[in-house]
């Protein structure tokens, strides 16, 4: 059962005093109330999840807790370990054992694991770093987090999953008592995510409390003892998982403040053999841009029909993004061979300009790094890929451009003051809509969506799905790359499964299940 504690001090469900209590936190920025009356209580040795839509105030709350916003810039009280704390900076909160691991990892890539673990905290005698000691302790810490790497390995040579473990080792080195993880599994594959969650459960045994911020409700359900739901800057509900089963629907309801009948918009599925094939790739091969001998995509054949949403499932590093970007004007890789056809005719996609000209659009998985001009406004972002449409003889018609941007803002329901707002200030979901708007404005026939809902909240996800469904309804072809199998199953007419550069399975939506997709990946893996 849930204990609803609306707008009151969070009542700890378990007995004993909480290790952390935040009471009546209020934080304002000029013109915006970011947090208002937020209450949070974390028990010793508890994994406490904080969930909420993007912009609900999760990150702000953690910045208040960790001293990024020092005491005095917010209202309310923070009690840690029985005493009131007034952190004036991160160093303060870390001294108490409150350690935050941000979504964007804060490791120095060209330093070794040991150097990173003890950065700012080096074991030293009279100002000289004792590297022998540092390496010995690093080895111990790495063993604790289950990372089999030498302390001398450079961080840049590690994958994201391992880097995350280094971050945790770094936290352990500082004698962590409350570990805060902000979206720790956002960029991890399923296996690494599992390992990370197991590690958190193990820490729990050792009495380390943990605050987990996550959009992945299945993970939250798996490990959390308590859940605090934030909505519009307020803590609206406290759910106690030890008292009984908490369903995902229950959490989502609290997050969005309304019933979410279905997480995917209903759409008629295309029959497997119906429809005209619009887009086709034949025997596509791509080599790594630096290591030319590594083949990243190994002879892929793919078809997309009019009005069809086709998914590509697979683990991280399976070659899905590489496939998509190499088709999109050779934006990735070298020694590319194979054929791309549109409406049965071979087309030249050797440059991005040509690919766009042939009606291909690629919505990147990395919207901040590869998708947006963050310092520029919505208007300029939307028009960027198709300036031709709002200009004549190289001169931009400002009015037409503004009207186009305003049009997409309305159609995609981009929440902003106006289209002159800088994109850096938008939430993840709205940023994604701006990128989508940009590519819809290029009038594509084929839209390649690479992880279109990564890092965006439930409400915005549904909006993105609705847009996809409407586009398919209009006859556009959509190729969707996703690591979240439920959304592939929820949206696609057909799903290809990719592993190690090859397509290892193809399912019509009616036949596809998570288990069957996973099995085809694993089976192929064991054959290799």
């Amino acid at each position, binding site marked *: 059962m849930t204990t609803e504690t609306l707008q009151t001090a969070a009542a700890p469900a378990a007995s004993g005093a909480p290790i952390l209590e935040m009471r009546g936190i209020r934080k304002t920025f*000029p013109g915006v109330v970011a947090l208002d009356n937020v209450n949070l209580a974390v028990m010793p040795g508890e994994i406490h999840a904080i969930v909420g839509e993007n912009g609900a105030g999760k990150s702000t709350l953690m910045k208040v807790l960790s001293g990024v916003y020092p005491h005095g810039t917010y209202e309310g009280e923070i009690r840690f370990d029985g005493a009131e704390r007034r952190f004036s900076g991160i160093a303060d909160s870390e001294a108490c054992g409150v350690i935050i691991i941000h979504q964007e990892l804060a490791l120095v890539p060209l330093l070794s694991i040991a150097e990173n673990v003890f950065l700012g905290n080096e074991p030293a005698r009279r100002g000289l770093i004792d590297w022998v000691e540092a390496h010995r302790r690093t080895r111990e810490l790495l063993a604790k987090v289950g990372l089999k790497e030498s302390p001398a390995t450079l961080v840049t040579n590690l994958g994201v999953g391992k880097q995350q473990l280094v971050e945790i080792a770094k936290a352990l080195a500082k004698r962590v008592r409350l570990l805060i993880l902000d979206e720790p599994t956002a960029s991890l594959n399923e296996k690494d995510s599992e390992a990370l969650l197991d590690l958190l459960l193990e820490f729990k045994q050792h009495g380390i409390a943990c605050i987990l911020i996550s959009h992945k409700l299945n993970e939250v359900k798996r490990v959390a003892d308590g859940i605090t739901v934030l909505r519009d800057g307020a803590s609206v509900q406290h759910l106690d998982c030890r008292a009984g089963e908490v369903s995902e629907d229950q959490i989502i309801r609290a997050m969005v403040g309304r019933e979410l009948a279905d997480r995917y918009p209903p759409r008629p599925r295309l029959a497997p053999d119906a429809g005209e094939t619009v887009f086709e790739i034949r025997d596509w091969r791509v080599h790594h841009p630096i290591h030319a001998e590594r083949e990243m995509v190994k002879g892929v054949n793919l078809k997309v029909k009019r009005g069809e949403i086709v998914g590509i499932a697979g683990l991280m590093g399976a070659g899905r993004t590489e496939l998509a970007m190499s088709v*999109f*004007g050779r*934006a990735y890789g070298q020694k590319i061979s194979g054929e791309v056809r549109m409406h049965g005719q071979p087309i030249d996609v050797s440059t*991005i*300009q040509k*690919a*766009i000209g042939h009606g291909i659009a*690629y919505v*990147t998985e990395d919207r901040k*790094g*590869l*998708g*947006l*001009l*963050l*310092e*520029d406004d919505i*208007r*300029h972002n939307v*028009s*960027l*890929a198709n*300036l*031709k449409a709002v*200009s004549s003889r*190289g*001169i*931009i018609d*400002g*009015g037409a451009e*503004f*009207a186009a941007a*305003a049009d997409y803002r*309305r*159609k*995609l*329901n981009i*929440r*902003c*003051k*106006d*289209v*002159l707002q800088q994109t850096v200030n938008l939430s993840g979901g709205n940023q994604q809509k701006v990128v989508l708007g*940009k590519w*819809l404005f*290029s*009038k594509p026939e084929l839209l390649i969506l690479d992880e279109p809902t990564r890092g965006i909240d439930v409400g915005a996800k549904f*909006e993105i799905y*609705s*847009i996809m469904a*409407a*586009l398919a309804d*209009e006859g556009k072809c959509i190729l969707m790359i996703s690591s979240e199998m439920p959304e592939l199953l929820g949206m696609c007419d057909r799903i290809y499964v990719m592993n190690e550069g090859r397509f290892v399975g193809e399912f019509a939506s009616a036949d596809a299940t998570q288990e069957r997709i996973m099995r085809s990946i694993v089976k192929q893996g064991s054959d290799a």
Partner: protein
Amino acid sequence: MTIMEEKMVPTTAPVIEKRTYGGFLKNNVREYGMLLSLVAIMVFFQVMTDGTLLRPLNLTNLVLQNSYIVIMALGMLLVIVAGHIDLSVGSVSGFIGALAAVLMVNYNWNFVAASLACLVAGAIIGGAQGWFVAYLKIPSFIVTLAGMLVFKGLALALLQGQSIGPFPEAFQLLSSGFIPDVFNGESLRISSVVLGAVVAAVLFGIKLRERVAHVRHGMEEEPGFFFLAKQAVFAFVIVWFCWLMASYKGLPNVLIVMFVLMLIYDFATRRTTIGRRIYALGGNVKAARLSGIKTERLAFGTFVNMGVLSALAGLVFAARLNTATPKAGLGFELDVIAACFIGGASASGGVGKVLGAVIGAFVMGVMNNGMSILGVGIDYQQVIKGIVLLAAVCVDVYNKNK
């Protein structure tokens, strides 16, 4: 093609905030701040020098002294917006001045042919540096640092350590000539005043048309009162300056060149696809590339453009001194780059305005001129200029983080 005729996502539209004067000022503090600080600096020196600053003779000198900096700042702004830097502009302009002298004085080339050859040489130099930057991906700082040394050396070699001059009369007119007065005014060059008035009227007309179009699309932010006040002040200042200069010798030729270039570059950055793409390139090169922009060619282009403008500046400077010296162009790059940053350009690219850079150049110019009149030594002049540059950028960063 019918992409999504209907609104797909049924939710309430966000309320558009009502615009207020205060809010507008706050959001545009940069643009007005720049202009106001230029005015403040001018008023300060005007008072301190007992009115010498704005005397017609001095005003004319001020324009002549700064023309080549302004011309290069136009190109530098594009380079900086594209996310690069060009340290070689001073050396290149010096080298081109030397080349012009050798061609015109030693080889007796016609001044038009020689000038064109110099501009082409500038384009080639810019292209060569741009090729390393854009296609070989060598940091522009390094490429142009090398260029700075190379062309400083080549200028020395070309002149063999000597000054070469004088230039043909016709060429000198580029910098020391004034527009002819068709009305034969006695103490006032009437044609200069008339030209100023016409320009002011035309600019006002263009701005008004732009604003009407903006209002029609609901994209105008500036309150009407500000718009009118700004345009009125602008028009008044143009006519007043022309009047002042008309009471001396009229408008210098180089001022016309500079003004026309300024209008062209302002228009190019604000209204053309090329301009927009340069901003995109500097804002996020990867996103720009994935949006189908030929980023390499564009970066290359900004350097070619910079080379041509450096060459033009070199010609203007040589014509003004009436001789090419090995020291010409020394340290120009510092003033040019400072002008762009004072004018609000961002060192990380993607941000900056042509008018800002021009104002920045005049901030530096007025300070140079004013301090010289006041008798401040060259030593402290540099200290003060350095501090002003740092302060301007600090204010910028502060406003941005607020």
